[in-house]
Structure formats: C-alpha cells, structure tokens
C-alpha cells in the first residue's frame, strides 16, 4: 500500500458493509490495533471515497484495481480537481469490497474493459466537489460567516473578506457531520488545474524500493504456503492419488484434495513445490485428451463450411454486391490462443473461518465475485468477507476470474489457517483463460472504379462470455467474438458479418483489448489487401472511407501527419498503418520496420495517435500506449499458445516468448485535444492496431501478406 506517514491504515477501520443511502459510510469497525487508534486521531470520513486526516492528509479510496494502468493516480486526480486539495498531501488506499463501489458498467465492483476513468469521471469529481462544499460550510459555521464569502484553495478554506484561513485537516471532523449538498456544480474545462496534467504517479515511490505489496507478498501470522497440482488436460480430474512420498518431503505439512486438484501445503513455497513433485496421481483426462490446435481449427473450418451462424451485422445485401463486383478479394485469417502471462503469477491468500467470516488478500480485478467465492466456501454471507485488494502484478483480464481465490479458500478451510496458494509460471501459462483462437473468412468487392461495394466476414471461435457467464449468450451470439469487425467503421454500402460460436474445451477469457485484439488485426490487414487491390495508398484508402466517422478519421489523419506518411523513409525501412476503435477510444498507429535477409522483422519506430475524449493524465496515457504496443507486438511477433493432447504445449518464457527490451521500438504518442467529450479508457485500446500496422509494413516490404499470428519468418522465405 501507499505510504501512510502517520502509520494509520484506514482499511482496518472501514466497515465494508454499512453504507448509508447517501453514499456516506456511516459506520466503522475496529478489529485489533486499537492501541494504534488510541495514539492516532482517526481521519474524518467525508464520503466513501475521501478521508481527511487532522494532519491534512487526503486519502482517496480507489475502488479500481491498480494493475499498472494508473488508476491509483488518475482517480485521485479527479477528486483533487474538485476538492482543491494540496496534491502533495494526497495519498490513496484500495477500497474494500462494498456495494457503494460497484461499477455501473458491470453491476459489481471490478476493473476491466478500460472503463475506470469513464465510470469514475462524474462520481469522483462529484465526491470531491461535495466534500469541498462540506469543508467550506464547516469553516463558515466556525467563523459565523456566509459560506458564499469563503472559497477553497490548496487544502485550505479562506474567508475572502477577513483573509482568515483554516486547513482541511482542522475542519474535516466538523465537515464530515454536515449534510452533503446534492447540487454541486462541476468545473468547466478552462478551470482545470489537475485534469489534463502529467501528474507523477502516486504508486511509484514504493515500486522502486521493494515495498509495494502485491498479492504474492502477503504474509499473515501462522500463514501456510500451498501449491496445487491440476490435471494437465482441460476438463480432466483426479482419479486417484498417493501422497505418501509427498508428505515425506521436508517442510510439507499436509496434502489435501480440492476441486481443482491436489494441494500440497508446506512451511514455504519451495517445500510445497518439492512436495508436489513427489505426488503420484492418476488422472481421468476426460473427453478432451485428443484436442489439438489442428483439430480445433479444423472444427472452425468445418463450421464455416457448413453453417451460416449468427448475423452480427447486416447492411444492404453483401452477397449480391459481391456477385456483381468487378473485383473480388478473399482471404482467410487466423489468430492463436494467447496467455496473459502477468509477471505476477496467479496467487491468493485466504483466511477462512468457517461459519464466521473470511479475509482475502488478493490481486483481483473483480472484488465482488472474489468475495462471493470466499463467502460460499466459508459458509457465510458476502458481507462477512473482507477483501483486501493488493497491487496487481499485471492483470490484462486474467485477474477477473476467481479460480485462484477458490483454491486458496478451499485449502485454508481444510487447514483451518491462513493459506497462500502460489502458482508457478507453468501453472499460470497452462491453466489460463485464453484469448480465443479464431478463424475468419473475408470477402470484399470493388466496383470498376476501385470503390468498395461489399464487405463480408464469417468468424468462427469459442465465446468468452459462454465461459464467464453462460446466461448472457442469446442465439449463439457473443459480441466480444465479433467486436472489431462487426463495428467496421468504413463506409461500404453492403456489409455482412456472421459469427459461429464453436464451443471447445479450452477455457476462454478476456485478454487486453478482448475481441479487438484479434479482430482488429484481421480487419485492418484485410482492408489493406482491399486497398492494394484497388491500387490505392493504404492511408488514403482508409481516409476516403472514414469521411463520416470523425474520430477514426481524426486519429488516422493525425498519425499520418506526425509520421510523415507518404514522404521518403530511410533505405530499407517500410511502413504500415492501421486504425481501430476499442472501448470508445480511437487509436491509429504507423509502424516502421526492416527485414533482414532471413526475413526477421525489426520494428524501429511507432507513431500512435489517440482520441479518448478529455485526457486525464497524458503521461499515463503515453505509458498505456507504449504498453499496448509492447503487448500487441508480443502476440504479433513472439509467442502463442498451442494445444496438443488436450493440454497447453508451452510452459514458460522460453517456449512462449514475449517482447524484450532489445526488441522495443521507439514509440511516439500524440493525443488529440478532445475535451468536449468525456474521457474513455486507455488500458487496452493501443493493442489492436500495432500488429496490423506491422504486418501491413511487411507487405510494403515484400509484397506478401501475413494472415496468421504470430509472424514466423519462414512463412515468407
């Protein structure tokens, strides 16, 4: 957690369940550490998001998970803008799990879909403005003056007539008792002092001296360490096992069977891993022991051959227009499964007190399902489960699941002790919820003038939502399977996008930018093919088809201008371009590459233009764009997940490679001035355009199309 200069940990006080109708937290509970409380004055609770200590420290409760995307800084910025507090006296705490922190986008507390800034934009600025007005009222009452004669600035309330002033810390206790106003007015763009500024990240100091605590860093009194042996084949289970040898391993305390497999519990992680190596298990591999990447893609192909699927988009009559087109372009593209490979492997620390309550210390993206999972296993109601959200060592969608929470809770319940379950890298890579592998067949038609008249796409893949929440699937449709294609922005009169949900045994999950991570690649590479068939420049071709789509056009034009598109490039260098909208943020990227004699690709430079409405912290936005480029290049040029005999072939960073520093291009980021539009997110949308930009550059260099991720040089040789 972020530093608390006065040693006061607010989370220990905050009663998680009791929240008043006004949104104010009206109760406290005080487990342990009362001596600490006695020595320290408790901060005043202004509302669910803002506490002010007598020492003028403003604590912002961050209800979103910090996984690198910067919410621990950008959300406090929204508060600070309206609160008029001293930025140097601001700090953050991760909020407990409670209904007041539910995100309207999900109907629960969670972080994903690049929604944090968008969802928090109004509520957090209002929370700041409301607290400010309460502090002003408290000062006015103290001085016996009218509140309209006072104003707030830099952590103080000032009486304009007498020049008297009082710090927020001195006013907070009285202010917290004042009825919150319901009609606060928020600032106009021209008045912003914090929003739009590249404020330093609040979480960096503790991330450069080893003090930041991630899930895996939790240490509780009496805590045991556990690892779990899971069936390597998806859908398989334990038939029988013999723990005799495992129990003889030094440090091993016990071996317990849980839903996901066999847990080995020990004094430390290594002894648990050694114990696991000594386990003897007979598996029932189940019905999927023959599944392979080839068999799965063969199923996709068969499905596309035989079934029309769900009509995800239908404009005009694409089939007729294709039949009468002067030129017809067809291509088949495919994307592999991808593992999230967060640097912090999955883990959870649970203290289950059966029938009484539970505590979770966990790097989770979704607090509410984690809380529910622990409650079910502990046999208590969710409000009896305290969720202590830690820093996340990467999330990328993986930590929206509760599988690792279930494991820790089951083992803690069996051991009647706090237990930390830690996954090895191999566990993490081989028991992920993977970005869906996907197969798509495109057709496009040009008229005699080279103008596109028809576009059709037929997509086959498994469905994320069918794994996450099967009840959400209607008529075999999952929007996340087609996003990036069904929302094609180009002005083409006849469009048909169909989707075949092909269920399989491989768990599917949200992977940074979700459907757009593969569909953005498919669409932007295929459109490049159409541009080439029309004998048009790929930038100009897109530009001409985006005349009715201002935001896509805006970023496309901006990136072309900044990269100097169309101007001479250094000898041996080639460029490609792509534009994709994801989660209502628009990103266009230009990649500059070279190829060596063995057709290895080197990406030298990337220009990225983004339109996410009002930028909140441009420095963090730049970080996220660079991060998205790196994540995207890893899928485009490096590793993939393949399946053989029903299990994942890869296990670690030797077989599933990711981008390293020596492969990092220089990335320049350009943010449009779009303050008239409320902000959207930047955690994910920079991922989709990079692979098509690079592959389109490969075409510019070689005249050959790459239609399958990841790129392998031998395919061009």
């Amino acid at each position, binding site marked *: *957690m*972020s*530093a608390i200069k006065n*040693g006061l*940990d607010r989370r220990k006080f905050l009663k998680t369940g009791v929240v008043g109708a006004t949104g104010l937290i009206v109760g406290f509970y005080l487990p342990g550490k009362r001596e600490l409380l006695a020595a320290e004055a408790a901060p005043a609770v202004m509302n669910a998001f803002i506490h002010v200590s007598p020492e003028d420290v403003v604590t912002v409760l961050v209800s979103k998970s*910090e*996984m*690198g*995307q*910067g919410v621990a800084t950008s959300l406090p910025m929204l508060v600070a803008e309206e609160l008029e507090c001293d930025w*140097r*006296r601001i*700090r953050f705490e991760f909020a407990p799990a409670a209904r007041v922190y539910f995100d309207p986008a999900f109907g629960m507390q969670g972080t994903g879909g690049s929604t944090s800034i968008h969802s928090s934009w109004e509520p957090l600025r209002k929370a700041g403005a409301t607290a400010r007005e309460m502090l002003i009222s408290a000062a006015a009452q103290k001085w016996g003056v009218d509140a309209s004669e006072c104003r707030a600035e830099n952590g103080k309330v000032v009486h304009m007539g007498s020049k008297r002033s009082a710090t927020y810390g001195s006013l907070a206790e009285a202010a917290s008792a004042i009825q919150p106003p319901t009609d606060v007015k928020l600032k106009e763009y021209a008045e912003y002092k914090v929003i739009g500024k590249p404020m*330093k*990240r609040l*979480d*960096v*100091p503790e991330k*450069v*001296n*080893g003090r*930041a*605590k*991630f899930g*895996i*860093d939790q240490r509780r009194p009496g805590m045991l360490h556990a690892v779990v042996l899971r069936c390597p084949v998806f859908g398989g289970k334990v038939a029988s096992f013999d723990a005799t040898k495992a129990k003889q391993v*030094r*440090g091993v305390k016990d071996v317990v069977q849980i839903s996901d497999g066999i847990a080995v519990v020990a*004094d*430390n*992680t*290594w*002894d648990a891993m050694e114990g696991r190596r000594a386990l003897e298990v007979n598996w029932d591999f189940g019905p999927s022991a023959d599944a392979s990447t080839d068999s799965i893609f063969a199923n996709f192909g068969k499905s596309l051959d035989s079934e029309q699927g769900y009509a995800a988009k239908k404009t005009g009559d694409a089939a007729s227009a294709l039949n009468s087109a002067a030129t017809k372009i067809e291509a088949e593209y495919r994307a592999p499964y991808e593992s999230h490979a*967060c*640097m*912090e*492997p999955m883990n959870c620390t649970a203290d289950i007190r059966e029938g009484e309550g539970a505590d979770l210390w966990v790097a989770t993206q979704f607090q509410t399902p984690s809380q529910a999972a622990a409650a079910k296993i502990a046999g208590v109601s969710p409000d009896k489960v305290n969720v202590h959200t830690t*820093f*996340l*060592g*990467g*999330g*990328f969608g993986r930590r929206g699941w509760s599988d690792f929470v279930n494991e820790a809770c089951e083992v803690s319940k069996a051991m009647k002790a706090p237990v930390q379950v830690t996954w090895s*890298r191999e566990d993490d890579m081989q028991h992920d919820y993977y970005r869906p592998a996907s197969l798509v067949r495109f057709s496009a038609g040009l008229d005699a003038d080279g103008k596109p008249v028809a576009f059709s796409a037929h997509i086959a893949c498994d469905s994320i939502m069918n794994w996450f929440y099967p009840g959400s699937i209607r008529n075999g449709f999952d929007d996340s399977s087609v996003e990036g294609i069904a929302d094609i922005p180009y002005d083409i009169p006849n469009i048909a996008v169909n989707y075949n949900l092909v269920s399989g045994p491989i768990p599917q999950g949200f992977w940074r930018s979700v459907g757009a991570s593969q569909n953005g690649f498919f669409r932007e590479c295929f459109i490049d093919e159409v541009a080439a068939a029309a004998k048009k420049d790929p930038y100009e071709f897109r530009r001409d088809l985006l005349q009715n789509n201002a935001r896509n056009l805006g970023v496309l034009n901006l990136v072309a201008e900044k990269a100097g598109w169309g101007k001479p490039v250094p000898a041996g260098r080639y460029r490609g371009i792509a534009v994709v909208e994801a989660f209502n943020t628009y990103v266009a990227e230009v990649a500059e590459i070279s190829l060596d004699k063995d057709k290895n690709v080197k990406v030298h430079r990337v220009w990225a233009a983004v339109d996410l409405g009002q930028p909140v912290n441009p*420095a963090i936005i730049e*970080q996220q764009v*660079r991060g998205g480029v*790196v*994540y995207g290049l*890893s899928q485009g040029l490096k590793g993939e997940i393949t399946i053989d005999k029903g299990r994942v072939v890869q296990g*670690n*960073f*030797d077989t599933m490679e*990711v*981008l*390293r*520093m*020596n492969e*990092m291009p*220089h990335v320049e980021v350009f943010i449009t001035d779009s303050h008239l539009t409320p902000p959207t997110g930047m955690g994910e949308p920079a991922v989709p355009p990079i692979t098509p930009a690079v592959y389109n550059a490969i075409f510019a260099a070689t005249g050959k199309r790459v239609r399958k991720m990841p790129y392998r040089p031998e395919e061009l040789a």
Partner: protein
Amino acid sequence: MAIRFTVNGKAQSVDVNPNMPLLWVIRDTLNMTGTKFGCGMALCGACTVHINGAAIRSCITPISSVEGKHVTTIEGISPDHSHPIQRAWLEVDVPQCGYCQSGQIMSAVALLNKTPNPTDAQIEEAMAGNICRCGTYQQIKEAIHKAARMHGAAKTETSELDQIPQGALAGGAE
C-alpha cells in the same frame, strides 16, 4: 545444517533444504518480499539480486551456493530512494504494475557499476533478460541514461522530485 550469508549487510543463518533457491529463502524464510518470483527458470529476471556485487537470478541459485557470500536485494539499494537509479526511476516515472521493477533496478544498478555510461546497445544487452509485460522498456532506457548522468555529475539533483508527494516518499506503511 545452517547456511550463513549476509543480506544487505546483515548476517543471516538459515536451516532449510540446501537445494532451496535463494529467492524462496529471501521471500519466505526472511520475509523480504521486494524480490519477485516470475518464472523459476532464470528467463524473466524478476528475481534478480546481487551476490558479491554481481547480478544473479536468485530463482535458480541454490542456497547452499550462497554460503559465506554477500547478497544485496532491492531493499538494500537504498530505502530512501537516494540511489541514482531509483532517483532516475522516480523522475521518469518508470513503473506501471511494478512487479518486475525490483529485478529491472537490480540489473540496471549492476550495469552502471560496471559500465557507468552505457550506450543504447549496452543497455539493451544488459537488460534483455528482464521481462516487463507492461512495456516500460522505453522508460527504463531513458532512466538508465538519466541515472548515468547523475552518477557522472556525482551530486544531488533537485528537480522533479519536489513534485512527489511527501507521504509516498516516506516509504511504505506496512
């Protein structure tokens, strides 16, 4: 059989499986959690520490081989952010999720100790063993150059550190 060594100058003696990697001794026996587990195969660099001044991957270093040696972890670089690498990391705002950063910093410190003014190519070579999934590579490179300049200047820069909240600079509360 106790194994003796020092961590950040402090004498330690542990009685564990002699094959246990140094990483787990540091994290689970000594409860110093700044050093991270990432891969267990010396592929990602998250576990990087120094032994007698050299950067090593603690996840594959058996504790038996550390007998009598001096280990430096991220906690030993400087608790108050005074090391030029930490100062540069703060000024550039390098970390995102931060999980790999202990290892990145330990590799960068070792690089600067050996090569006080590295070129881009030298930085890339020295740092290629440290994976960052958030993609902070460009900022790391910038920060290493900045730290090299600070090292060279051998004096304290003021500058952007003034913007960092006081509470945060005081260190972690837990």
